[in-house]
């Protein structure tokens, strides 16, 4: 493994680095995916734009206003785990970050890396799909555009990002006022933490004072070429009473989620096992 590196420390140095290196570069943030990839491919003649020393508020911090919370692409999994506001308002995200790999990897792995790697088993990415987050993409011209994460993943390792763009941050809408949330992340793996998942489910369900469901996000990981947002299953729950769903309704919900799964059999699990597991987890999140 041999590559050249540029280490921008400011946003303008970063934009310049993207322009100068045009098509032949890779971003490196926490390197927990990139190092293995570069080692395997033994790539030569590539320049790594090293983001690890970039100092820019938008990239590095978690901030919020009355409408949304913004998480910088360089925020690490462990910073997400330790954020009290996220823990209270978006348990799905906190749990996903806390389930990722090991303490050592959470310490360096970034949310931007988890998204941009575009793996069907990305845990943080899966939670962000359930939260219908928006990706803020900065282009080398300095302009930012916003793309819904629901439209971001085009295939395994393929995203809607252009060659000269970088993910700067993600936006998550705050929960509605005076609501109850039922939110969490479930991952079935062959080993408890490290193994990328066999199947994972992220859910974030908001209900009003009368217990009627007002807003739902359900995302599934590792059971299709990309993380999927189970739109019809979400729609099915809207307006229903969270506490009094009949057994048949729970099963219908699980069936609707399963429609988005097209799992394969691989070394970790068979397609049949993945579907069974998913069906049962879907039902289980509606038991209370």
């Amino acid at each position, binding site marked *: *493994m*041999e*590559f*050249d*590196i540029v*280490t921008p420390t400011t946003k303008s140095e970063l934009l310049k680095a993207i322009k100068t290196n045009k098509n032949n570069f890779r971003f*490196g943030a926490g*390197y*927990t995916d990139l*190092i*293995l990839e570069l080692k395997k491919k033994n790539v*030569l*003649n590539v320049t*790594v734009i*090293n983001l*690890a*020393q970039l100092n820019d508020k938008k990239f590095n911090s978690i901030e919020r206003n009355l409408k949304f919370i913004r998480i910088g692409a360089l925020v690490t999994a*462990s910073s997400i785990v330790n954020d009290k506001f996220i823990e209270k308002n978006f348990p799905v995200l906190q749990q996903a970050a806390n389930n990722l*790999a*090991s*303490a*050592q*990897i959470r*310490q*360096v792995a970034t949310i931007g890396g988890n998204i941009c790697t575009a793996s069907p088993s990305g845990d943080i990415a899966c939670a962000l799909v359930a939260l219908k987050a928006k990706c803020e993409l900065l282009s080398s011209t300095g302009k930012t555009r916003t793309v819904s994460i629901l439209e971001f993943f085009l295939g395994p390792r393929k995203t809607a990002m252009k060659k000269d763009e970088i993910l700067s941050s993600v936006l998550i809408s705050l929960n509605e006022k005076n609501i109850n949330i039922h939110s969490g992340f479930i991952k079935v793996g062959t080993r*408890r*933490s*490290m193994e990328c998942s066999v199947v994972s489910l992220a859910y974030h369900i908001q209900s009003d004072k009368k217990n009627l469901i007002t807003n739902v996000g359900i995302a599934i990981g590792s059971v299709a070429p990309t993380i999927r947002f189970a739109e019809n299953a979400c729609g099915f729950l809207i307006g229903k009473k969270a506490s009094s769903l009949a057994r048949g309704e729970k099963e219908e919900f699980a069936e609707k989620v399963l429609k988005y799964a097209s799992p394969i059999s691989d070394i970790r699990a068979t397609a049949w096992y993945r579907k069974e597991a998913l069906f049962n987890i879907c039902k289980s999140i509606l038991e209370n």
Partner: protein
Amino acid sequence: MSKKKKLVVQNVEVTFILNGKKVTKQIRPSLLLIDFIRDELSLAGTKPGCLEGECGACSVLIDGAAVNSCMYLAINIHGKNLTTIEGLSDVNGLDPVQDSMIKHGAVQCGFCSSGMTMSIKSMQIKYKKDKKKPSKEEIKKGLEGNLCRCTGYVKIIEAAEAVINKVK
């Protein structure tokens, strides 16, 4: 004449704290921290295991928190505080974490031990800062990134619990 451009790679200068002392070095950009520590700083206590982030044998502390040195670019140590297993003990003796490992019989072949020790140290620092006593489950979770093929973990977890929560 071949038109293929050959990559000309320049070394990068980094300044950091190594086990309490300020150091400045020239580093090849693609050098991994584990190779830098073992081959260039000649500190062999940090162990190469899987080299894929799975086993934790290569764990070191960066600014007090454990990371896998096999997945970390050496140049990114710039401006940071690096502690390897050699930096834990001082003239007054072993670190309490090391003492606890010995006292609880948590070391067999020893290959995982420096990495385990760094992970336990990392937890000890974190929980001390948070003024919190972790549960056994939390301690186990903190050690998920460290594999041991010898001990079966029980004694390691006991050693960790004892030193972090200061129980006998």
